């Protein structure tokens, strides 16, 4: 019975030529908690033993007692109730229904016993129901129930999904981005409130979330580490140790899965790299790289940030950081030192201010940046740039204000630590803003949304500033200031007859694909960023580029354009129209009648 159904499903989901991913492989992923979760019902039963026994005993004593009490039958002659009748009376008395004295009016002795029965049974039921309610309120029981619920939801996932460990700032940003891309994900976070936040978020998918420690491989297992549809694991917690543990667990238990881990410590990064080939994102490092790129090639930086920002991003402003002169850096911790090294590598001089800095080092002012004397020693008047890079938002904001008072022309970069302060930093209008979570989220998006985007972003810096500026202009001209969608298109001759014929002619031009299906003289609001053919990559291929079977394209543009391209590739008549301008009837009969046969369109 399941055979044909499965075959149908395979066709629908993967197309005729492709094979579904192999499901046979059993990974050695532990799932002990899952087994524990299924035992929730046993917990209920075990705790309900004594209450239930109490109820049974009370019923038994009441029933048997009632049969022994002397009574009278309808004629008034002495009689005793049978077990059946007394069970009936006790049943409706104990459940407080109370039909009255059945089958015959009771004697006073029976009434006395029924009074006892009433009180006994009320106590019995109160105890039983009370125990049940306490059990439902019980923390461990609720957790067991949540675990069971989560396990079932994850096990039922059939679409590819991402496993996100850590649902803090970074996790939430990623969640929103992937949800808007229509990607399913599963969340694991140690903090209960973060998982509760999942319910408040208006995701299109039902996102399974579990409050559990991601360091435990068992928890990763029930969150879908061993699931065939798991695509990648993201270790995005604030704790580097946890991220390292997740990276290790994935490398050892599912070596085939890609891992993206966040860390701010080079040591941890080094240890992560010892396990397989994880993608490690160090936001401090990345910000330094971005700043260097922004100094050297503002347009390239602008293009990369725009594409990395995800669907619906506005064109960021092209900053003009000063490329010569001296920078003043407040906060010389891990972030400050990294940034100073990057700036020095670009040929800039840096003066760092930090109360805990080593006084023997060159260009270092020891002291608190909010102290005017310390500021004066750093000589802001002669500086061109200022970075407020401490890990305290209030300090950073006041530092910016102080620095601007001394020298209003400074290029100001600020570090924002808490998402709640976003409005304050926005009002302060720094020239560059570092939000750690954002840096990581962008990087992960670029890496995971489609492999072509990642490839494109790798190629961009080598193309030069001029090219990037032209590219930004072109994107703006075609699609406006907002980058709505980025999507990959795969051209397969097997996907439809028309596409097969078209690709087979050898004159399939890329430009034709980007014509509007309604009016072929109008181009679609879309730009092809990348063409992948085998292992070759062509950046921004021209309209005359010839397309072949198996080519992959990365297109940026309006959602309307995406639907148009999909229609063109799916509907025979539309493709004929955009390529040749002839309206081909869409039904087979009309095509035969009007003389348009296959040969004519193959011309």
């Amino acid at each position: 019975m399941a055979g044909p159904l499965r075959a149908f499903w395979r066709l629908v989901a993967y197309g005729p030529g492709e094979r579904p991913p192999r499901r046979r492989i059993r990974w050695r992923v532990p799932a002990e908690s899952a087994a524990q979760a299924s035992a929730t019902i046993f917990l209920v039963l075990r705790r309900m033993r004594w209450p239930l026994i109490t109820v049974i005993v009370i019923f038994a004593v009441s029933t048997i007692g009632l049969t022994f009490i002397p009574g009278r039958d309808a004629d008034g002659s002495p009689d005793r109730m049978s077990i059946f009748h007394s069970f009936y009376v006790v049943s409706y008395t104990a459940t407080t229904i109370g039909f009255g004295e059945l089958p015959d009016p009771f004697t006073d002795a029976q009434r006395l016993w029924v009074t006892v029965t009433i009180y006994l049974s009320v106590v019995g039921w109160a105890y039983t129901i009370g125990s049940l309610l306490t059990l439902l309120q019980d923390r461990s029981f609720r957790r067991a129930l949540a675990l069971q619920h989560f396990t079932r939801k994850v096990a039922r996932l059939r679409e590819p999904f991402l496993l996100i460990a850590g649902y803090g700032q970074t996790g939430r940003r990623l969640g929103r981005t992937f949800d808007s891309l229509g990607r399913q994900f599963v969340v694991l976070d140690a903090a209960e409130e973060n998982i509760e936040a999942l319910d408040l978020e208006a995701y299109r998918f039902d996102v399974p979330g579990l409050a559990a420690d991601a360091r435990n491989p068992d928890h990763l297992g029930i969150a879908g580490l061993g699931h065939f549809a798991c695509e990648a694991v993201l270790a995005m917690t604030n704790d580097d140790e946890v991220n390292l543990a997740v990276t290790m667990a994935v490398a050892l238990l599912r070596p085939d899965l890609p891992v993206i881990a966040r860390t701010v410590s080079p040591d941890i990064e080094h240890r992560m790299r010892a396990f397989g080939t994880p993608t490690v994102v160090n936001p401090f490092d990345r910000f330094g790289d971005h700043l260097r790129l922004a100094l050297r090639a503002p347009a390239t930086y602008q293009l990369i940030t725009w594409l990395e920002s995800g669907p619906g991003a506005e064109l960021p402003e092209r900053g003009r950081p000063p490329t010569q002169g001296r920078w003043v850096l407040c906060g010389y911790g891990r972030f400050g030192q990294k940034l100073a090294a990057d700036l020095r590598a670009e040929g800039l001089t840096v003066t760092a201010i930090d109360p805990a800095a080593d006084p023997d080092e060159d260009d270092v002012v020891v002291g608190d940046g909010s102290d005017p004397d310390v500021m004066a020693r750093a000589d802001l008047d002669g500086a061109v740039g200022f970075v407020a890079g401490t890990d305290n938002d209030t300090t950073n904001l006041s530092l910016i204000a102080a620095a601007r008072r001394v020298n209003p022309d400074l290029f100001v970069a600020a570090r924002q630590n808490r998402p709640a302060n976003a409005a304050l930093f926005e009002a302060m209008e720094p020239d560059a803003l570092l939000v750690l979570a954002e840096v990581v989220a962008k990087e992960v998006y670029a890496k995971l949304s489609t492999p072509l985007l990642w490839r494109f972003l790798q190629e961009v810096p080598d193309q030069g500033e001029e090219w990037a500026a032209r590219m930004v202009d072109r994107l703006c001209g075609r699609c406006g200031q907002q980058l709505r969608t980025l999507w990959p298109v795969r051209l397969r001759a097997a996907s439809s007859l028309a596409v097969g014929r078209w690709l087979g002619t050898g004159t399939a031009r890329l430009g034709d694909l980007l014509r509007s299906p309604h009016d072929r003289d109008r181009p679609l609001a879309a730009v092809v960023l990348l063409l992948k053919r085998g292992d070759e990559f062509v950046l921004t291929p021209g309209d005359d580029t010839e397309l072949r079977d198996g080519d992959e394209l990365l297109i940026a543009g309006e959602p309307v354009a995406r639907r148009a391209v999909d229609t063109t590739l799916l509907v025979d008549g539309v493709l004929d129209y955009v390529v040749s301008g002839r309206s081909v009837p869409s039904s087979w009969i009309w095509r035969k009648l009007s003389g348009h046969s296959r040969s004519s369109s193959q011309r």
Partner: protein
Amino acid sequence: MNLEKVVFGFFVVLAATLNFGFFIGDLSDPDVHNVYELFAAVVINLIATVLKFGDRTQIGAVHLATSLVADLQLIAAAIFWAYAAHISSAGLTGEATAGIVSLSGGALFANIVSVVLLVIETVSFQRR
């Protein structure tokens, strides 16, 4: 000595003995099968069943299954008795008694399995 085990063993054995007491005697003679004994057997069997709740071992599962079978048979016997004694016009005839007692006989078998399991569990526990 574990008090829980004592209580458990007590109820399992008592359920079997009461059941046996009701079952023994001429199959169709109502006089040798006391209905109070049937009542006690039902109650004790129910208690034994509840005591077996929540045991996740394999032997615990079989224990629970046998108890449920005994409950089912005994409750069927009780309903049969109520029907024969109160609803049927013929009253508690020999045929009806035979039906009730044979149902309780089935329950007795399940109870014997329960006792055997109890013995097996005890023996295997001591060997370890």
